[in-house]
């Protein structure tokens, strides 16, 4: 096997003679077994390099997969979403891939589901009644389905009314391909009292 040692790329404080290529491969190996986006910090701890170095490794892997380094463009891409890194199939092969992925992943989000998600995204943690008041319709069924699909999660109860409170999940961000909710374009001008909302913006994400 190739052991392309490149001292210039080693951590100065590394006491092991681990090659740059082995670090890249170790990151790939970890990303193969993760079930959600993994932060550079988590990866850095597992591979035993600095977080700064890990970001450089991840950037290189991303560029490689995209064919930027001269190799062929891969059928997968390494993306930074929901605060972490994860391999995804490349959108141009959606047709070939979709035969193998089931149900929830391909199901479209209805207008009702999207509006409900929008309200909860900006008002979280929030009770269903508050969402219903804004949307003007009962949202119980939609909310329950969204929880089952992992796009919403419960987050305790309203201290006064006892109503269950809901928050959006990292899976929603993944579904939208966003690193954080702040990446939604034109977040602020839409809504009143942006300052008030920001406290609630990312509970437990």
């Amino acid at each position, binding site marked *: 096997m190739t052991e392309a040692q490149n001292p210039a790329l080693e951590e100065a404080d590394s006491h092991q003679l681990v090659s740059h290529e082995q670090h890249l491969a170790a990151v790939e190996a970890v990303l193969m077994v993760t079930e959600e986006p993994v932060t550079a910090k988590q990866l850095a701890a597992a591979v035993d390099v600095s977080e700064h170095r890990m970001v450089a490794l991840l950037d290189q892997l991303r560029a490689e997969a995209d064919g930027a380094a001269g190799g062929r463009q891969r059928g997968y891409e390494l993306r930074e979403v929901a605060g972490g890194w994860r391999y995804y199939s490349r959108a141009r092969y959606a047709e070939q891939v979709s035969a193998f992925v089931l149900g929830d992943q391909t199901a479209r989000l209805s207008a009702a589901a*999207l509006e409900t998600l929008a309200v909860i995204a900006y008002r979280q943690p929030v009770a269903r009644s508050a969402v219903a008041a804004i949307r003007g319709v009962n949202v119980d069924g939609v909310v*329950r389905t969204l929880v089952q699909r992992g796009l919403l999660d419960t987050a305790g109860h309203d201290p006064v*009314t006892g109503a269950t409170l809901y928050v959006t999940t990292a899976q929603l961000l993944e579904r939208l391909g966003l690193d954080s909710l702040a990446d*939604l374009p034109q977040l602020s001008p839409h809504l009143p009292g942006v300052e008030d909302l920001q406290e609630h913006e990312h509970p437990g994400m």
Partner: protein
Amino acid sequence: MLPVGMLSAEAETTSGFQVRLDGFDGPFDLLLGLIAQRRMDITAVALAEVTDEFLTYVRTLEPEKALDESSNFVFVAATLLDMKLVQLLPGSEVESDEDIAVLEARDLLFARLLQYKAFKQIAEQMAAAAAENAGRFPRRPGTHPEMAHLLPELQWRTTAEQLKELAERALLRQQLEPDHVVMEHLHTQQVNIQEEMASMAEQLRSAGACTFGELVTAAPSRLVVVVRFLGLLELFRDRTVEFDQQAPLGELTVTWSGGAHDDAAHAIARAGAEWGGSGHD
């Protein structure tokens, strides 16, 4: 009413737009500051009036300046609307039914529509983001044969009987949570503006005239009061009813001015359309 000069120093004045209202005369931003500091009652500010004034003002500006001022205005107005909404939405603290009645109805309509529109736009953006992302599927780890060895030895203390109880509890919980959970305990309910308008039209048609108090006397909640008030305004737009109020905060008398038949139908249909999906998803 308020010594504006004394306060202007503590408010950030970024807008050149000046408002002239009953009891307030000064920069628009300052208005927000005063309300935020609870030195002025938000429900006393007629935003629709302010908006009309602003539109007149902004037409006098150069395009670039107008854009800046407009976005600032929208921000401040949105903040004001939010404050109003906090007081209007179910579950909030409104002092009394009179508080609601004194609100400019157009403000309320405007506020609700603006808020709903904002969320609709966000939903559209989310839909676009989801569509943009649709062809990508995440790596799923599946089961790695080697992974089992990596896990710490499982500590198992559950008996078959406990497992049965867990299953029963899960299945029972599902049974207890039917599809449409009753909303009463959540302190809100859906109100259909068309139904409210139809029943008020019926009541007014037979009585000739009622006070607002009489029209909402049987209302089960504040939300119904608000919706009925909005419904009345819709009827008023078509001159199906007339209002009479002798003094500010005084009793509001509603008089039927339509005929004996379906004069209210147009207003009811329009209200149904404007307020979108009257209770259905």
